[in-house]
């Protein structure tokens, strides 16, 4: 039986991140990328969400993007780099979730490989990549057996 080391599951997410960073430096997408960038810039300029900024999707993605622009000197690339990072973490988490449910390292690697081949990396800094990461985190947290995390809530309920 083929054996996989623990770090093997990291290979494809890392490749996804590197590929995304490389590909996205060449993309000019004034509509999609510009929309996300300008929304975050307008938020930093003090405009009110919804009333003065067109938030077609959600407020949290604009908050995250604004924070990235503060840290990285308003650079557009920080948004797509972070999106690629979110997607690669999501791929890793899907591998982890599969391992938790199947206890099979080969299947968790195999699954990430299939998803990577279908969609290797994001090419738009779209909020669905953030929500995808949060969805994966939600599932992994739900599967978490660690009861200590829930002590406070347990206290409230009982």
């Amino acid at each position, binding site marked *: 039986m083929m054996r996989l080391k623990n770090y093997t599951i990291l290979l494809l997410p890392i490749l996804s991140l590197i590929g995304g960073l490389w*590909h996205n430096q*060449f*993309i*000019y*997408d*004034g*509509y*999609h990328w*510009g929309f996300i*960038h*300008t929304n975050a810039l307008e938020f930093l300029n003090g405009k*009110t*969400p*919804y*009333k*003065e900024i*067109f*938030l*077609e*999707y*959600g*407020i*949290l993605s604009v908050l*995250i993007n604004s924070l990235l622009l503060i840290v990285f000197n*308003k*650079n*557009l*690339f920080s948004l797509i780099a972070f999106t690629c990072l979110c*997607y690669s973490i*999501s791929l890793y988490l*899907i591998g982890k*979730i*599969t391992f938790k*449910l*199947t206890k099979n390292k080969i*299947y968790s690697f*195999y*699954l990430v*490989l*299939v*998803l990577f081949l*279908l*969609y290797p990396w*994001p090419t*738009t800094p779209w*909020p*669905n990549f*953030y*929500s*995808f990461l*949060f*969805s994966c*985190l*939600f*599932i992994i947290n*739900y*599967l978490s057996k660690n009861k200590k995390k*829930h002590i406070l*809530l347990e206290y*409230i309920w009982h």
Partner: protein
Amino acid sequence: MALAYLCLTTIFNFIIVFYFILIILFLILFRKKLDKEIIFRLKNIFIGFTFVLSLYFLYIYNQNLFDIWFVYQKLPFIFNNALENYSAFDFIIKYANFVFLYPYKNFILEPQWSLYSMFIISNFILIGLNIKNLYKKNEIKINSELLFINIYIFSLNFYGQVLGLEKLATTMSLGAISLSILIIKIKSKDTKIIINFVILFISFYSLLFTFDLKDSKISGMRYVHLKELINKDQKIKNDNFKYFSVQKWNKKKWDLLNNITKTQSKINRNCNIEFGANLTVDNFFHSLIKYKKLQVIPFFFKHTGSILRDYIEPKLITNIQNEINKNNIFIITSEGNDKLLNLENYDHPLLFELDNKKIIKEYIKIYFPKNCYR
């Protein structure tokens, strides 16, 4: 889950409502059979979600934004009424077609969809199996644990049905987890090998022969963004723009952005203009406008744009016209959007050729008051 909701509120409104309705339904049906720990975890999910959402709505209420927030939540309906006018039944039929027919009919050119179809179907089958096992009281803890994950993935179909590669990759790809569980449950080793071979074959075939999805109507930005790699050696960096300093674009694109910036600098030397407007679909131009902006929607669609504007900023054109009359606005337009305005008292526009591969050349026009650009 609450964070996912806040990132993509307009879509997750449907997902979350559907998810909680299904959870409540299953809790009522299987209350006595479900493990107490699972019920406890579901309560935690609900409390956590309600807590984060309460903070969000407190902000919305505090800023007096509820009315406009509500308009935004109607956007999916507004778009549907204006563009497709599908009923709920039409959506189900369209999605059923995508899951059961389209991927297999178009397998040669678009094999990717067949895998997404398998993910969706696997998730559905696993929900059925888990319910059946719960009825029979087999492996209750594992099944109920899985069931609520499968229901969440199932709820994501609300976003998946919009179709498009990016949407499927960030929703229905989670169905792959269900597929792997089903494969592992198969007892026959040969069947397992065959299924795994089929999946790998489709994956590699998609990668090697149809990766660009050139002729697909639901490939999202795949083909357009792959084309950006053509002539990548001719693309260059430009340190003059702090926003775009990492990007490598072709010279024509940089020249256009340079012209927009330089024009504004020149105008500022002669005139004191207060506002700027971007009447093109390129939002980078909006970012580069140094003046105050009247627009809420940073782009301007010629044909379908009025649908959005009517709800979000119905007085936009009137407001821009008022500022034109006061010689107080700088305007970037394309696609003949300037015809919506009376620009008689403005100077002749500057024309810059757009970098696209269309046979008929397209230009952006920059309008400004007379005697500002000398």
